Every structure is written in structure tokens, then in C-alpha cells.
């Protein structure tokens, strides 16, 4: 058993702080702890680093079966809508990276139990950049890319 948990359980049973502990996630089963937020991946400063942290070693294969719906010219870099859709089968996960952002990883989503190969979000972009999307399908990694232009300035008030 995780040492932290053992110590905490001993302590909390005595002090009745179980509620707090549960909220802090310390009492979660091990497999959920393993699925904690991937800090290294989100702090990686290059696409390659982030890719390794999220998907491990190996290359992604370009795929025409991934459709990116995103503007060619973003209206405002703070709110760029993007959706990823794929015809690839057995999609396990989708990931989005913005190459020119200080930390490229935007989000990853693990899909299962009837979820379609689809993910959408609104993201922040610092400047014009290639946006890479990754799809893990049947154990293999695929990718597609699109450039999104971001014009800073204008008469912002």
C-alpha cells in the first residue's frame, strides 16, 4: 500500500479528517493515482518532449483520416476554437499541441466506452503556429497538422 495512504489513514482515523483527505485525492485507489495529471508533459517546452511524455517513444504517422476544424485566421488568440474528428477505429486518445506556445501541450483526452473519435475545445495561442493533433488508434499513433494565423494588435480596447 502506498506509504502516504497508510500514514494518512492512521492519522485521519484519529482526527476525522477523512473528508479532507478524500477531497485531496490521497485516498484514491492506486490505478487512479497513476492517471494523475501529466505534469511533465504539460511543462515540456517542445513538441517532441511533450510527445514522448504523453505517448512514449515512437513516431506518429500522418493520417488523412483525421479532420481538424479550426480557423486559418484566428479572430482572437485568447479563444481559438478547435475540433478534432477522426474516422480511425478504436480511438484510445486524442491530443492537441500548439508548436509555438511556450509549452505546446494543450490537452489530451482518453476515450472509451462508446466515445467517438472526437474532441473539441477553445484554446489560447500566443502567435501564428502549426497546430498538431494526435490520435492513438489501435495502439498506433497518428497525426495531422494545420497552421492557425494569429494577428496581435489592432485597436484592442
Amino acid at each position, binding site marked *: 500500500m502506498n506509504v502516504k495512504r497508510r500514514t494518512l489513514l492512521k492519522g485521519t482515523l484519529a482526527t476525522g479528517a477523512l473528508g479532507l483527505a478524500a477531497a485531496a485525492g490521497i485516498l484514491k485507489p492506486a490505478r487512479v493515482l497513476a492517471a494523475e495529471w501529466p505534469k511533465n508533459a504539460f511543462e515540456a517546452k517542445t513538441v517532441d518532449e511533450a510527445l514522448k511524455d504523453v505517448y512514449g517513444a515512437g513516431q506518429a504517422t500522418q493520417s488523412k483520416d483525421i479532420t481538424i476544424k479550426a*480557423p*486559418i*485566421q*484566428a*479572430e*482572437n488568440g*485568447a*479563444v481559438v*476554437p478547435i475540433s478534432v474528428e477522426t474516422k480511425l477505429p478504436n480511438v484510445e486518445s486524442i491530443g492537441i499541441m500548439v508548436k509555438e506556445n511556450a509549452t505546446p501541450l494543450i490537452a489530451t483526452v482518453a476515450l472509451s466506452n462508446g466515445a467517438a473519435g472526437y474532441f473539441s475545445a*477553445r484554446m489560447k495561442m500566443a502567435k501564428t503556429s502549426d497546430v498538431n493533433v494526435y490520435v492513438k488508434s489501435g495502439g498506433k499513433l497518428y497525426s495531422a497538422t494545420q497552421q492557425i494565423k494569429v*494577428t*496581435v*494588435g*489592432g*485597436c*484592442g*480596447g
Partner: protein
Amino acid sequence: MKKILIGLAALGIVNLAPVAVHASPESDLKQFQDHFKKKFPDVPFDEYANGLYALNPVYRAQWESYNEFPPFEIGLEEGKKMWEKPFKNGKTFASCFKNGGAKIAQHYPYWDEQTKMVRTAELDLNDCLKRNGESEFTNLDKDQKARVQLAQLAAYFYTLSKGERVKIDLSKPGAVDAYEKGKKYYWARRGQLNFACSHCHVDLAGKNLGGNQPLSAGLGHPVGWPAQRLEWGRLETLHQRYATCNKQVRAQPLKHNGEEYRDLQLYETYMSTGLPLTAPAMRN
């Protein structure tokens, strides 16, 4: 700033002669709306309710994306809560308005004969608070939190009239004078950049200024407000937009709900006669 001046010179800014002072609001209205119908023959009239997106296909697709679940729904929910929460005396905002507040916003702002001033929804909402012994939203020029709360409340008020077509009554004594003052403001040059509202929103409507400032048509301007600009990430009042717009041309911003902005709002809204209310809306 240099970019903008160069852009304007390149576009050959044309100053449309201001309408003669002795024309009537009705003839002003026809001239104003006809100008846009002629300039953009393929844009359906109702589309002008969508601000810059009526004239900008590149951003329109994104706008339709945001509209699938617009961020202003969060602020709007706050506005709904405020509207529905009873005052200490048990009454609610609905008691201050005709028809419980539903299907009346298309007549705002209006000339109030008793107080001899143009009244906006924000003013009436504040007045409702006052009459029921509650504290008003004050210091709107400096207190963003108070102003945004009022914008959220006003946004909800406007949803009660969503789709209703603008119809402003200028028949009472004093109304046309206020309208004329608002019109004068709209067409007068101001600020270091020496622009009038008409320069950007009549002459240059549809153009993209300085690379990333798409200009909306003056026609339909107020019907999406209170609005949430991507730039601000929050619901805001129309007068806040007037103030920041003044700053953009390096002019002195004026007071929230002060006479100038209220008269301007009266003019702009009258010029949008017939367009459906879409507030709150996402804007650039």
C-alpha cells in the same frame, strides 16, 4: 497607431456629409439604412443584428463555433439569478417593469417625459433597486465588478425580449432633441485621431482596420448589447464599449449613463429600427 493611419490613407477615407439638421428622424433612418443596403446588396437586413459577423465571413465561422456554447452563458446565469432573487421587501425586478419585463426591451432606450432624459435599461434596473430599498450599482466608470454585474442583469433583461424588433418612440416632446444630440455626436470628429463614429462604422464598415480590427456597420450596433467581447472575456455594457471606443481614437471617454452616451444610444438604436434584438451576443 501608425499602421491605422496608413491604412486609412490607403483606403481613401471618405467623409459622408452629415445629414442636414432639419431632416426628420424618419428620413434620417431611411437614408442610413439605404446606405448599407446599397453598399452591401447581398447582406439580408436581419443579418445586421450580428454586428461585424454580418460583413466578415472569415470570423463568422468562428463566431458560429462560439455560439454553440457561448461563454456569456456564465454571466447570463448570474444575471438570471439577480433578476429572480427577491428584494428584502419580497418584490422582484419584474414588478418594476411593464409586462413583468418581457417583450419591452425593444423600446429601450426611451425618452422619459417626467425626468426629461433618455433612460436606458441599466438606469431603470438601478432605479428599481433604489425604489425597493436595495443598493444600486454605482461607480460604473471605475468599478468593473459592479458594472459587469449590471451588464449581466441587463443582459438577462434583454433576453426576455430576444427577437423583438427595435421600435423607438420619438413622439414625446424633448425626444427628438435628444435624438438630434445623439446624431450630432455620431457624426462629429473627435480625439487625436479626429474620427467620427461614422468614419469607421459607415464609411469603412466591413473593412479590416490595421490588420485585425474588423469594422462593424453602424446599422444594428446596439441590438447585441450587453455583449461579451473576446477581447474582454466578460459581459459588458454598451456604454463601456462607447468609452473604450473613445479611447481608441484618443478621445476622452465620457461617463457611463451620462447624457452624451444616453443620447448616442438613442440615436444608434433608432437607426436600427426593425432589427431583432440578439442580446447578449459574442463580439470581437
